[in-house]
């Protein structure tokens, strides 16, 4: 019994990791109907930015550049926020200079803070978040706005293009070796329930941390969607773009917000995956792991992403342990897909997706 529970628990915890990536997909699909293939690339970009901002193995110039980029990103977000808060009054010219000077000060403070040993996690995580926000704004401006009202497949292909771009961009500016990410998250294995079973159950503390983080994220997102003003607007947009626009919800801003939130989720996923595997190009491939989770849980359901992740994780581990001796190893690459495929045969919209109603 002990080994079985250990496998199941290991599967559940691995599933949480998949869910973290799938969450970002769901957020964007719900709010804009875009199937965002670039989520995996965003995870890579977030993790690489974070780890390189914290690292100490490159010259000072790199960090001045990083500080400038972070300052620029933060400043851009501030400007956008300013525009939104006061859409009527034009921004006074001095205010622009003030912001610029403040940003320069922020940037140089950050660069000085860096010294020769890299930023601490407390600075680097918000900086990486600011960069993700900047990325969201750029994607909305440069890609989504010109493509508004196109067919879903065109938008999907454009996100594949974005994924290529971000993959290349991230590795060009941040380098492409394997970096270890250490935020002080405990990652030693530990034993649970030693009294109940002989030898107890072996789990990794990092996985538990990931599970807690996923739980917190889901709660925060649920509150954000249900209780806040922006959340209501997001749900309205998800329901019907045109209707939302006609009652005065600014679609472009909603998209920026939702891509930013997806960027934060990507950062969270990047932190966990990066701590687990090291930050390297293969993190971008976790997107491929998240896709079956996504369709299993339903493209439009946040709880579905979590439960789908748990199911896929468990199924995968069980299959690896109990099935692969019979049909050969390496089945984890496709098992999740086949599992999701079978569920879809019975529920074409996934387990928790909205029922697809078709009219002529």
């Amino acid at each position, binding site marked *: 019994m002990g080994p079985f529970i250990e496998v199941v628990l290991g599967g559940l915890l691995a599933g949480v990791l998949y869910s973290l990536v799938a969450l970002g997909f769901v957020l964007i699909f719900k709010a804009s109907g875009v*199937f965002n293939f670039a989520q995996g690339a965003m995870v890579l970009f977030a993790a690489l930015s974070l780890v390189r901002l914290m690292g100490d193995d490159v010259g000072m110039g790199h960090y001045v550049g990083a500080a400038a980029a972070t300052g620029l990103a933060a400043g851009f977000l501030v400007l956008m926020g300013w525009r939104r808060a006061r859409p009527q009054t034009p921004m006074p010219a001095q205010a622009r200079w003030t912001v610029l000077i403040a940003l320069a000060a922020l940037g140089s403070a950050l660069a000085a803070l860096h010294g020769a040993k890299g930023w601490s996690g407390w600075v680097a995580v918000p900086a990486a978040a600011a960069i993700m926000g900047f990325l969201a704004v750029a994607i909305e401006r*440069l*890609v989504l706005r*010109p*493509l508004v009202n*196109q*067919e*879903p*497949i*065109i938008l*999907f*292909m*454009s996100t*594949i*293009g*974005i*994924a*290529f*771009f*971000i*993959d*290349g*961009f991230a*590795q*060009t500016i941040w380098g*492409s070796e394997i970096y270890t990410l250490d935020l002080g998250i405990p990652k030693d294995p530990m034993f649970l329930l030693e009294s109940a079973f002989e030898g107890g159950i072996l789990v990794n503390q990092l996985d538990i941390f990931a599970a807690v983080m996923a739980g917190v994220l889901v709660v925060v997102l649920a509150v954000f969607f249900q209780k806040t003003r922006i959340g209501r607007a997001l749900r309205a947009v998800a329901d019907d773009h045109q209707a939302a626009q006609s009652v005065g919800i600014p679609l472009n801003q909603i998209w920026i917000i939702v891509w930013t939130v997806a960027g934060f989720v990507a950062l969270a996923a990047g932190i966990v995956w990066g701590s687990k595997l090291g930050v390297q190009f293969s993190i971008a491939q976790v997107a*491929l792991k998240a*896709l*079956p989770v*996504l*369709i299993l849980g339903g*493209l439009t359901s946040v709880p579905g992403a979590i439960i789908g992740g748990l199911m896929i994780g468990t199924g995968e581990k069980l299959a690896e342990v109990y099935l692969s001796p019979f049909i*050969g*190893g*390496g*089945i984890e*690459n*496709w098992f999740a*897909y*086949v599992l*999701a*495929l079978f569920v*879809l*045969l019975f529920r*074409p*919209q*996934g387990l928790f997706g909205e029922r*697809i109603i*078709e009219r*002529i």
Partner: protein
Amino acid sequence: MIYREAGQFKTTYRADQAVFPILQDRVALLLILLGAYVGIPMFASEYLVVAILIPFLILSMAAIGLNILVGYCGQISLGTGGFMAVGAYAAYNFALRVPELNLIVVFLLAGGATALVGILFGIPSLRIKGFYLAVATLAAQFFLDWLFSRVQWFTNYTPSGSVAAPPIRIFGYYFGSPAERYLLALLLVTIVALVAKNLVRGRIGRSWMAIRDMDIAAEIIGIRPMFAKLSAFAVSSFIIGISGALWAFLHLGAWEPLAFDINRSFNLLFMIIIGGLGSILGCFLGAAFITMVPIALNQIPAMLGVPISTATASHLELMIFGALIVFFLIAEPHGLARLWAVGKQKLRLWPFPH
């Protein structure tokens, strides 16, 4: 002026239903074919033929297959690479185990085997639609990847997992030189393109398009969705299978399962989207674009004399490729084929204002 079709009267039903109703199109096509069949083998350098033209032709064929499924029948597929692998390994095994078979028959059998696999993985499309289906077809991609790398029978128990194609010998004639292989590929691509062009104009093609535009409405007016969808999967996989076999036999020579991984699927999808969904001409334009861009990107830093490390160069290539795709989607979401159609409209008057 150039494209003026005034005075070209259609006096018979045959003329009315011709594949290329405009005289200028027919002339241009004949010239292109003449150039491709006679000019290129005589004048083109070996590098051009081996590195650009053969891959371009074979990928065009695969793109035609994929376009039938995605562009004409509206079923998004991300498993093309897997289907090409089925064609390649089926051809390898037929040629290996039944050596007396004619190679043309081997290619056809490979296409048939791929069609069967395609139908099998097409069955979910009867219930699953849209992006759910797209992700479900990834199941085919990953399963087939795994199958050919793990089940040793398919690779004839070679220890490295890499297999080599037998020499290309048809009716006792040995296709050894690049030009000969190019001609073989060109011949097959011409036939496939002609067949596909006619298929999509006929009853079956119209039923695919009806399914694509709205499957429920199509069902109500009497189109059998099961037959239409599965036949699209079968025809598309058949063509993709043949192209996979050609890719392995004519282009690669020796290959391993990695040659048909998911990047191949994405590449082909890019070809048909950039070329134009639902257009046979678009397949060729898209294939040309996607084949040429990486080569051009490779050459540019060398030409400018900028020293860039190979790693950086490959990352920059990724970036530029992604940016170009986004740019093309924004500039013309209906693809290069639409640009050509617009250009044709303009040429009808040009250089006169009215």
